[in-house]
């Protein structure tokens, strides 16, 4: 559990981060979202003490972060940034092994971990271990950057706009990968982005920052349905709000008995996907399938009723 307690950062008597408190549960993804200058990156960098807080403290599993030297703390916290920041003069394997090496892991253990991570990120170890970052595509570089951050099984992974430099298709795949890997490893992740879509898509919890203050911290559905301030409402986007809400709800929530024809939709797909399918194929109801068996249907009126959400 990560506890951020009344943390502030003041530059030239102006508060970049103003008395922010929040708690992050182990094994969850918290996305900090805000416009540029909202203090979100400064908040993140104070957690691993790349910036020293002016006041307040951070506790990781109960331990106050200032009880150890900064670089020792940072070896326990994964850190992945926009533009990956790989060491261009080290091979992929050596990049990923950077933190285990600092921690004095044995050669065999380090090597096994490097191969494990490359495999986890769908990169063949034999093919990629000895390549150099400049020989990889942008998406591969980014994956190696995240793999390096995860190498020592850190208590916490901090990510600062990790997908910012990727094109939309690669970014969607990287987000899906992150979600899958986070579920598999049970990692605790704090991720900074300016993209509310990404926040809603990835976050178990979303924290909205504005002018150095934490204005709302809740589940994606809460943020969409009950925005705390006009700024948050603006961030979640007026016209897209019902669609964003639908994207959070799986089809399985609205399954009912009844007839429906045509190609089925998967039970774990989102209601937004189902709505899109209804509109595209001109149907009022879709069969719902789980593991290939049709288990019921989902109807357009039911989706519409659900999308009405907050009124």
């Amino acid at each position: 559990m990560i506890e951020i307690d009344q943390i502030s950062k003041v530059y030239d008597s102006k508060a970049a981060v103003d008395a922010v408190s929040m708690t992050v549960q182990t094994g969850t993804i918290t996305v900090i979202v805000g416009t540029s200058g909202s203090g979100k990156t400064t908040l993140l960098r104070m957690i691993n003490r790349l910036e020293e807080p002016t006041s307040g403290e951070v506790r990781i599993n109960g331990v106050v972060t200032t009880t150890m030297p900064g670089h020792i703390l940072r070896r326990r916290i994964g850190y992945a940034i926009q533009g990956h920041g790989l060491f261009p003069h080290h091979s992929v394997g050596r990049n990923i092994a950077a933190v285990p090496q600092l921690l004095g892991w044995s050669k065999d253990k380090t090597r096994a971990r490097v191969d494990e991570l490359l495999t986890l990120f769908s990169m063949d170890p034999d093919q990629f271990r000895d390549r150099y970052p400049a020989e990889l595509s942008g998406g591969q570089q980014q994956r190696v950057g995240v793999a390096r951050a995860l190498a020592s099984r850190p208590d916490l992974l901090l990510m600062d706009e990790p997908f910012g430099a990727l094109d939309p298709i690669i970014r969607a795949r990287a987000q899906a990968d992150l979600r899958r890997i986070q579920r598999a490893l049970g990692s605790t992740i704090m991720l900074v982005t300016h993209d509310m879509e990404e926040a809603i898509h990835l976050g178990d919890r979303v924290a909205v920052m504005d002018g150095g203050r934490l204005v709302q911290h809740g589940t994606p559905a809460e943020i969409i349905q009950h925005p705390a301030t006009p700024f948050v409402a603006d961030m979640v986007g007026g016209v897209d709000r019902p669609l964003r809400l639908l994207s959070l709800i799986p089809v399985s929530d609205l399954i009912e008995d009844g007839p429906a024809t045509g190609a089925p939709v998967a039970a774990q797909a989102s209601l937004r996907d189902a709505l899109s399918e209804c509109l595209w194929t001109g149907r009022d109801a879709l069969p719902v399938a789980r593991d290939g068996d049709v288990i019921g249907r989902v109807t357009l009126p039911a989706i519409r009723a659900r999308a009405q959400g907050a009124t």
Partner: protein
Amino acid sequence: MKVGTFARAVLATLLVALVVRPGWFAWAFAPFAPTSGPVIYERASLLSLSLNHLGLVVLASVAATLVAVTLAILVTRPAGAAFLPLSRTITSIGQSFPPVAVLALAVPALGFGSGPTLVALFLYGLLPIFENAITGLTTLPTATMEAARGIGLNRWQKLSQVELPLALPVILTGIRLSVVIALGTATIGSTVAAKTLGEVIIAGLLTNNTAYVLQGGLIVGLLAVLIYDAMIRLETYLTLRMYGGAAAR
């Protein structure tokens, strides 16, 4: 590449022959010698002069590299940033002194011989290395530097594992410039009795013997060209090795 290898071999052979068997070239230098005067310099062996010349250059360049790189590292640390302008001024002054003036000033203190030359070459070598080291250390990719700190490298590890290796090609370029300048400047050292190839040239100038001047000049020139070339290839090799060949594309 093949033409380059061939040219390199020819020039190297020519250099060795000029130094070890100068007599072979008497026919070529004869037209430039005064009538019935000596054609080939024989007061000292060209080999020992060349080795001495190179020794002075190497010694001065190693010292200049150590001092300039150390200085550059210090002034690019947060604590040393205030000294950056001052250290730039000092090295610039080193460069703006004419070498002859340095020699003249150093002789009373160090006496005749190699000492004053060494001082002049050292001072002359500082600036290119210092400037390049500063450039190399301040133009590192920001994301990489940020990540280096973020994953928990301490200052020394960051310097030795990331900053210096990444800045190395640029620093080597500075050393290369400095070495080539020193090769030429070392000839002037012979005016204060340093044993360098300048002795041959100066003897030629004093006795109006163009053959001597050509001999000395040719050897120094060939040395400079070959060393310059070798260092460029070293830089390329290191860059390729560090970036796994991708940088070449």
